């Protein structure tokens, strides 16, 4: 999001943001997302987390966290975070009034065809999020760190978009997509193997006794296993260990 009183002549990526809002803490360490990139002294890093952040930023950024997911579950009953995170961004900017924010949420969600009671829940959630942080204002233009312009060499048969190395999927830790986490309760589990069979991501393996073990690096939190488990032995938890 860019805000300015004068015409905005920037587009696309924001290379050094005043504020970074992170919806899911595990994204902080995702090598492709890199949300901390471009943050400089005085930037605000806001993380949706119920826990005290252990992160020690190398730069002097202002670190804030609130349990937005907890609030979303309280008001809406689901982990729908867009209005809530938007509300935080509005407040941090110091430029958007509470009323403007509420009007916008009502208009946009009505366009999506949501029922009035659902819209109202989102508005209540947004209002609480808005009041949960203080304004810190914005800073000026975004500049990408400078690098010289180079000539691209022709690589011939090596410059072709072929992928030869196999098994790259494990490099992508899709566990960062997860909001809710399945936890197997050893007391209730009968080692039936149904969760192992149903997991669409192949993230559940079984040990020699047949008990399941979940690979949290790649589990996306779809919760198919919790639904399929005949003993209801797989609990849903928020913010189980994400690293």
């Amino acid at each position, binding site marked *: 999001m860019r805000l300015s009183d004068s015409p905005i002549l920037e587009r696309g990526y924001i290379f050094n943001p005043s504020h970074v809002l992170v919806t899911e803490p595990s994204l902080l360490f995702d090598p492709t997302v890199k949300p901390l990139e471009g943050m400089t002294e005085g930037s605000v890093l806001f993380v949706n987390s119920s826990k005290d952040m252990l992160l020690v930023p190398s730069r002097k950024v202002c670190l804030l966290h609130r349990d937005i997911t907890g609030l979303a579950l309280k008001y809406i009953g689901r982990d729908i975070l867009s209005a809530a995170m938007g509300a935080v961004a509005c407040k941090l900017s110091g430029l958007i009034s509470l009323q403007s924010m509420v009007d916008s949420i009502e208009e946009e969600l009505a366009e999506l065809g949501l029922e009035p009671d659902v819209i109202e829940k989102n508005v209540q959630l947004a209002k609480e999020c808005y009041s949960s942080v203080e304004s810190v204002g914005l800073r000026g233009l975004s500049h990408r760190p400078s690098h010289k312009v180079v000539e691209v060499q022709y690589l011939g048969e090596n410059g072709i978009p*072929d992928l*030869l190395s*196999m098994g790259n999927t494990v490099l992508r830790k899709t566990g960062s997509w997860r909001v809710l986490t399945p936890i197997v309760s050893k007391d209730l589990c009968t080692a039936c193997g149904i969760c192992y069979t149903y997991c669409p991501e192949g993230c559940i393996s079984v040990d020699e006794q047949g008990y399941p073990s979940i690979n949290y690096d790649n589990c996306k939190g779809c919760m198919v296993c919790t639904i399929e488990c005949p003993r209801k032995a797989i609990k849903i938890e928020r913010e189980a260990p994400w690293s």
Partner: protein
Amino acid sequence: MHDRVSKKGYKNREGGSMVLKMLTGSQAVAWAARLARVDYIPAYPITPQTEIIETLSEWIRKGEMEATFVQMESEHSLLTAAGTAAATGARVFTATSSQGLLYGFEMLYSIAGWRAPLVLVNVARALAAPITLEPDHNDVLAARDSGFLQFHAENVQEALDLVLLAYRVAEDHRVLLPAIVNMDGFHLSFTREQAELPEQNAVDQFLPEYRPINPIRASEPVAKGIPVLIPPLYSFFKYQMHMASRIALNVFREAAKEFERMFSRIYAPVEEYMVDDANTVIVMSNSFASIGKQAVNVLRDEGYKVGLLRMRLFRPFPTDDIVKSLRGKRCVVVIDQNISVGKGGITHPEIAEALYHLEDRPNVILPVVAGLGGKSISLEEFRHAVRVAERLASLKAGPDGPLLLFREDEAALVESLLKTASGG
């Protein structure tokens, strides 16, 4: 020279025997595919291309040619099958035309991006609507930016030879791009001319087996044309294609030199016809260049110092050859047998750009649109275009838009047909 010779053996420079035949353009490119020992031919019929795949399927049915022939359900499937087969390491030939090329269009970019070298013959036919079967080059030039190399043939012999050259250049590991060989429908595809069939052994020597890079094989997975959601990667790979195409210009020259040594026919990226001492040069491509040359002969007799430059390669664009032929000329007349609606001819701006930075650039580079939908171009029209260009040069003026070549009798014909159509 154009005696009807059905079959006649004689010795070439290398001492091998060759066969002279009276072939249509369609048969000639089918012969080229056969001589190139292609492995796979996905096909779909469309006028005026169908004779090519009919010829090939007949040979395969009779056991005279060893290749897998599959009739697909559309040109989109055809091109998908062609590109993927080439990615497995098969030598692939296919052919289409006009609406068919456009129906498969999105796959052109994919195949080029996979860097899968196959050869596609496009039999040029003007695009609907209104619908016609006769040729112009809006179909093939729509594929201009796809990454396919483009070779444009004037006659039957050249159509055959360019298919062989196209395989050689496309499969070269310095290039690895697919190629289109274009020939005009009817005027070339269904016109019989004497052509020399190269001997199989010689073609095998000129065109050794295709050695694919990272072919898709059973139990050896490889992902081609991978998603690159990181913008610099897309930019990098796309520009690699451009550099590959630019290098193809020299690879073509090398291959043409070898071709000349083996088959005694010369193919440069452009062909000059009476250009040396010309003041005005007509730029054309494909089969209508023959009538352009005939017009040059007559105009020379009338005292016009004209010549003709024929574009054989269109991608990669042979800038250096164009500069060499056209610098210092008084006038250039670019005849586009195509139209970019709202601008004019497609090749004119490219020719003009190639010459722009020269101190001795031509005084006039006249954009001309002619021969759309196969409309013939008569001597009067060539003469008119040359005179317009020369008048502009003497007035030190520039053209104010493309000049459409159209005759009085044609205008009268249109008028009478419009009357019929309106019921008047």
